């Protein structure tokens, strides 16, 4: 290989590495913001059966769970300390809140029964998720993080949400047969 070719190859590897490193940084920042949002979702949400001993925050993805734990460990909700759980199947339930990342959604959509979702606030980040699966769903608009809420699903899961929060959200409705 010529010297020129070596130089181009080195530049390619450098750019690739820096790109992926940057992507990972952006990814982490996004979840930190989402963690802050979720912390506030909990404050504006009312559980019909108020959590008793601790507030159980469940995650599926290990990496996201780490970020969330790091961000929200010091938070208290309803005067309770938070308990972070990593769940891989429904046996690990019950939880008070479950964050379902993009990659895990399809799997959990099939696993989670209607009964199991009672009193469980499901937060997702997949387009259209709130219409059939989650209660709150993150989305981006104009490079800003936004969220949508499905009041029908909240009601059917014995949950309610403050009007102040609903006012900020994009309201969605369930698709037929997906309450």
């Amino acid at each position: 290989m010529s010297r020129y070719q070596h130089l181009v190859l080195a530049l390619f590897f450098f750019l690739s590495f820096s790109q992926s490193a940057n992507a990972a940084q952006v990814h982490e920042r996004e979840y930190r913001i989402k963690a802050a949002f979720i912390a506030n979702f909990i404050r504006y949400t009312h559980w019909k059966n108020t959590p008793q001993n601790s507030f159980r925050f469940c995650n599926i993805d290990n990496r996201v769970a780490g970020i969330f734990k790091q961000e929200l460990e010091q938070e208290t909700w309803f005067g309770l300390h938070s308990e972070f759980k990593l769940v891989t199947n429904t046996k690990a339930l019950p939880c008070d809140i479950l964050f379902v990342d993009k990659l895990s959604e399809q799997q959990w959509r099939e696993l989670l029964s209607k009964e199991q979702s009672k009193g469980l606030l499901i937060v997702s980040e997949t387009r259209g998720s709130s219409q059939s699966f989650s209660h709150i769903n993150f989305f981006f608009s104009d490079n800003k993080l936004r969220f949508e809420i499905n009041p029908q699903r909240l009601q059917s899961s014995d949950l309610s949400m403050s009007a102040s929060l609903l006012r900020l959200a994009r309201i969605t409705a369930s698709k037929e047969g997906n309450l």
Partner: protein
Amino acid sequence: MIKRFIHKLPIGQKIVALIVTVSMFSILIAIGGLSINEFREIDRRMTQEVTVISDVLATNITAAIVFDDKDAAQELLNALKAKIAVEYARVESADKVLFAHYGKENLANKDTVNEMSYYTIETPLYVNQRRVGNLILVFNNAQMSESIRVYLTVVVAVIFISLVFSFLLSVWVQRRFAAPIIELAAMAEDITKTGDYTIRTTAKTSGEIKLLQDLFNDMLAKTNDRELALEALVSKRTQELETLNKQLENQAHYDSLTMLPNRALYEDRLQQSIAHAARDGSRVALFFIDLDKFKIVNDTLGHAAGDELLCQVSRRLEKQCRQMDTVARIGGDEFTMLFMLDDELNDVNEIARRIVELFQIPFDIMDEPLLMTMSVGVSIYPTHGYDFDVLKVKADNAMYQAKQAGRNQFLISQT
């Protein structure tokens, strides 16, 4: 000064002034109290309204802050357009960074707000006891000022109407109660001036005023009766006094037996006659008369007979006198006569002769005829002197000479 001024006012004006003043003070005190209450109530309402707006907005704005949703915050603030009173709104983060704002930006400056008398309310925004920001609302006081303006207009109207009413009331009270008293006072003054106690007050009244009126009329009636009785008594006493005076005068100037002028009155009249004659150049004749041997009558027939004789002699002498002439008894059996001589009567000899002849007819004393003579001495002014005493002496001397010459005759002074 005010006290003196009030003292000078008539009772009617005093009543009007009193009622109007009391009413005014009462109204002002009442309105003062109500105004304080009203201002506090307006302030309370305003504060309450502002607080409600702020609280409602704060709840929603807090969510917008925690989710960093400036658009939602701005949308919420823009909804304040419906609230005319809100001139400026500002949402800031806990570290005072502007998050969203609405309205007149010049009101963002606190000094401007204070200078312009705006009303500011700052609401801290909390999430789980964590301060996430502030909501600052700036209200104008126009609504409050308008409320106060309307209230003050009503207050002024109420004060004015109340004053008019209290004035009319006081005038009515003055007419109802003071007018009869004023009438009584005027009547009392009238009675004092005229002394007419027959006047009565007739104004239609009731209660104590009527009682006062009746008592006053009653008092007048009694005073009038007493006045009449007093007048009658005074008149009677005056008459008695006059009678007494007359008696005293008679005693002083007239002889109690014959009722002829006595020596004092005779001397007075003689002086007056001389003065009169001196003025118009006429003459006065002075006659001194002494009854001859009168003592014998007293001694033989008694004093009663003597007195009766003196009385009859007096009557006969009186008949010889005109209005202007005088006959007087100057003591015992001595008489004097004064004649103003004029064209009608100027012959002294004739007068004297007539007088002497009067005694030629017997007197009827105790049913018995009694012949009595007299001696007469005459002096004439100014023929025999100008002086009163001189004329008396000369007449007296002439009378003695007549007695010495054989009595029952007259003699005109020769000196």
